């Protein structure tokens, strides 16, 4: 397994990265932690002429408190996201989903931004980003712009990033005090999710006031289960009301069928796992 030959560039600032990326043209590829890209290169499923490595750009790493949101640098590793107290306090859903990513080796190399930009619909961080209404800050030759998560994921392995743009950081609105859970279903521990459900719920006096539900691998992009969310608001935080709302979880989804799950089974799993995610999130 040897990749085709490529030029390797390792800029040290975001501005440099954007410039070399623009110079390298359409056949350039950005490498973050490399946990998805390196196997693809080694199997020659992709043959970029230039690799732009973001690993030496210090400003892309780290997590900071920015008032009503956390700002997570795109090159922050899964391991650093997992152990960050701000993430645990304000975006517990992200913490829960990151816990389930692959294995320790991958979590120490793989990055939050890299996983989002790779846009694998079976990846575990897309649905939480969508459910928490994260905002992607991207930078290109024309400067910075913000893209809402719902607009960022376009198709299988495809995002709204333009060829000269890199993902710089992710603004995740605080959901302090919300109950959260990521319910992942896979055949073996190291396998990708067949289906997974990201749920965050705010309740007051036993009544659900707000709910966010995101689905992993139920379409070519992560899916927000709006019907479930709407059905929950104003309902008691009980197993019964959750079960009733979760019946709507597969509405509007267009999952693929494969050897692990056909369409009907995936949709069934979405309903079952949505119930379980919500029950755990609210502690019902």
């Amino acid at each position, binding site marked *: *397994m*040897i990749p*085709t*030959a490529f030029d390797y560039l390792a800029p040290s600032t975001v501005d440099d990265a954007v410039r070399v990326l623009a110079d390298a043209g359409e056949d350039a590829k950005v490498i973050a932690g490399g946990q*998805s890209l390196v*196997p*693809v290169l*080694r*199997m*020659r*499923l992709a043959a970029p002429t230039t690799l732009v490595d973001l690993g030496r750009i210090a400003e892309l790493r780290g997590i900071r408190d920015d008032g009503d949101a956390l700002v997570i640098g795109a090159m922050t590793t899964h391991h650093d996201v997992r152990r960050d107290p701000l993430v645990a306090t304000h975006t517990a859903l992200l913490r829960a989903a990151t816990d389930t990513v692959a294995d320790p080796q991958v979590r120490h190399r793989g990055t939050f931004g890299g996983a989002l930009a790779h846009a*694998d*619909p*079976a*990846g575990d961080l897309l649905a939480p980003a969508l459910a928490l209404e994260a905002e992607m800050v991207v930078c290109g030759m024309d400067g910075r712009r913000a893209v809402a998560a719902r607009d960022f994921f376009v198709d*299988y392995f495809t995002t709204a990033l333009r060829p000269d743009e890199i993902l710089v950081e992710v603004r995740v609105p605080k959901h302090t005090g919300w109950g959260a859970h990521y319910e992942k*279903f896979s*055949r*073996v*521990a*190291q*396998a*990708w*999710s*067949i289906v997974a459900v990201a749920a965050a719920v705010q309740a007051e006096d036993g009544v659900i006031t707000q709910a966010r539900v995101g689905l*992993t*691998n139920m379409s070519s992009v992560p899916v927000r289960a709006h019907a479930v969310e709407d059905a929950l608001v104003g309902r008691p935080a009980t197993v019964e009301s959750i079960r009733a709302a979760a019946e709507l979880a597969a509405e509007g989804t267009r*999952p*693929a*069928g*494969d*050897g*692990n*799950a*056909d369409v009907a*089974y995936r949709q*069934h*799993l979405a309903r*079952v*796992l949505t119930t379980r995610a919500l029950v755990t999130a609210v502690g019902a």
Partner: protein
Amino acid sequence: MTATVEPEVGRARTRKEDARLITGRTRWTDNITLPGLLHLVFVRSPAAHAKITAIDTDEARRMPGVIAVFTGRDLADVQGSLPCAWPITPDMKAPPAPPLAVDQVNFAGEAVAVVVARSRAEAVDAVAAIDIDYDDLPVVLDLAAAAADSDLVHPDLGTNRSATWVFDSADAGTGGDVAAAIADAEVLIERTYRQQRLIPAFMEPRSVVVDPTGEQLTMWSATQVPHILRLMLALTTGTPEHKIRVIAPDVGGGFGGKLQVTPEEVLAMVIAQRLGKPVKWTETRSESLVSAHHGRDQIQKLTLAARRDGTVTGLKVELLADMGAYLRLVTPGVPILGAFMFNAIYKFPAYHFSCTNVFTTKTPTDAYRGAGRPEATFAIERLMDELAAELGRDPIEVRAQNWIRHDEFPFTTVCGLEYDTGNYEAATARAKELFDYDGLRAEQRERRERGDVVQLGIGTSTFTEMCGLAPSRVLGSLSYGAGGWEHAAIRMLPSGKVEVVTGSSAHGQGHETAWSQIVADQLGVPFEDIEVLHGDTQSSPKGLDTYGSRSLTVGAMAVLKAGEKVIAKARRVAAHQLECAEGDLEFAGGRFTVRGTEKSTGITDVALAVFAAHDLPDGVEPSLDSEATFDPENFSFPHGTHLCAVEVDTETGFVKIRKYACVDDVGTVVNPLIVDGQVHGGLAQGLAQALYEEAVHDESGTLTTGTLADYLVPSAVDLPHFDTDRTVTPSTTNQLGAKGVGEAGTIASTPAVVNAVVDAVRHLGVTDVPMPCTPMRVWAAINHRSADSGLGTEAGGGLGSLDTSGGAV
């Protein structure tokens, strides 16, 4: 020289080879490099069945670092045909098996061309520049369709059916007539089970280095069978056997997958000879999954006849076995190794077995851990659970009613095999205790009554196997192309150290430790003073290698026989030194002592005296070194009781192993740690067949499980704690009383798990779940949807959804 006080045999020693194997500070084949080494990379067919109409290698030949490019046509006159050593019937049909395809490819992954370059990277780049045109032929994938001969894999053969092998107890005179038993049956259990296709998935990829520059050509290969390989290379290529040296350095696992003479080994040799330069080939994981031989792949049609009181009266087994596209080294014999094991531990009065071997356009199959016996054990142990369910009785009770009681040994089975010893009652009683059988049954009832989402199931497997391949006379009666003996030699070095040479070369089993323990006891020398040499046809010139749980029961017996000769030679010299008759000497703890006196000498002192050779008895040659070749009279028959409890999530179909307890009887144990390790590893592979692993092809014959992201080998996180114990009923077929343990866990565990899954949901109307019992299949069974819900090819997420047709990159 001090004698060992505590016996070494039975001691839980950590393995002396582990430090170098685990840290990788050793010589794997791929670590070997030679001056001027060239690298081979293969071009593999993406098509499962096609005519090769054109191959354009011009651009590749001009690329940097490329020395040569060969197609099948270039090598057609020198590459020979890969050997099959097991013609199971006189009329067996076997197609030519060229190492490099010449005109036609018959499975996706078959080697079509090879690039030789100064570096691996340059060879990989050149592979991408080779242009091959294929003219597609109809693929033959389904076993039943293949047997019906609608499309032919090898048109010249006129059929896809290679051979049909039959055993009938009435014809053989070893039992009654099955047709009569079925006609008179009060209860008939008729089932069809599928043994899915599996991939051995050894840890170290295959690798071969060939140096043609010496007088003897030297091949290093990651192989289980250096001795068989040497002979077969000579027969295949025409290079005389005495001009070939084969070395299997440390080898990282095989599981039968390296019991092979591979296309790549033959081609590496032929190309090295043609170029006069050393060459190396090491496969990628993708290449390994698609082109190294696969395992299992059978359809089993089964009929069990019984009386209403639970007594079994007859068993009929009809198999279709997938050979894949070619017959490799022992491909046709693998299902036949199971023929004598379907009756297992039970007293069937009548038995009929037939197996039809069929060609398909898929990767060839061959030996995989257990080879024939896991398939047989699965079938009979599933049937015994089904019989118990039909009769509304406890599955262990029905087994006990039919098994051979401990006081009935030796017992001649309906197949004519003589089981020497066993105690199924003792192993089962201990296993039930270890498992808390009654407690788990109570919990199962409670969950059922409560209608819990999570249901509990309990599965039983009371298995036996025939192992220690060997005996040569039996292998001959099955038309196997070789014997089953094993060779050993012991060299007594003048400094008191000992070299043990064994023909049974380890590839992870721990022979170096076990053989040292055995010889330490026999010769009375310290464990640390013994070195075990193996895996090089120059230092261990004779052997039949390692497979079929044969090393201890055959290979170590040869070591003991050689040791006996050493002691006999030393005794004569010792008697001379001590001025007594040989009959007056006792040998214990490494010392010869004149009976009733304090006069003694150590065997290592004798070795030094023999080296000096100053004062030897007349006619005694100055050497204690001895060799022996051992061929046992019979197989050994390990057995055990495996109990598995699973929790089935009835909403999702997910199966979680709650508890696994097994009590194996492998006879005398040389090293309990090694035995536990073999059982644990075996269980992991058996559980994997039940729940995780399956080689899947799409409708075009492409392997869709071509990476380890799709072919799900479980890791430690996915496996339960194993509660293991042993009973010890020594075998009488060898002097140690040992049986085999290399395959026991794999053979026993698969039906225990599937029985447990079915037991958990039988009250919901489920009588079977096809393997592997994936969550979707279990859910489909509970909801009475189509039994095998879709092996679709659409892209889901994950790396595995990307196209991975197994090219050599």
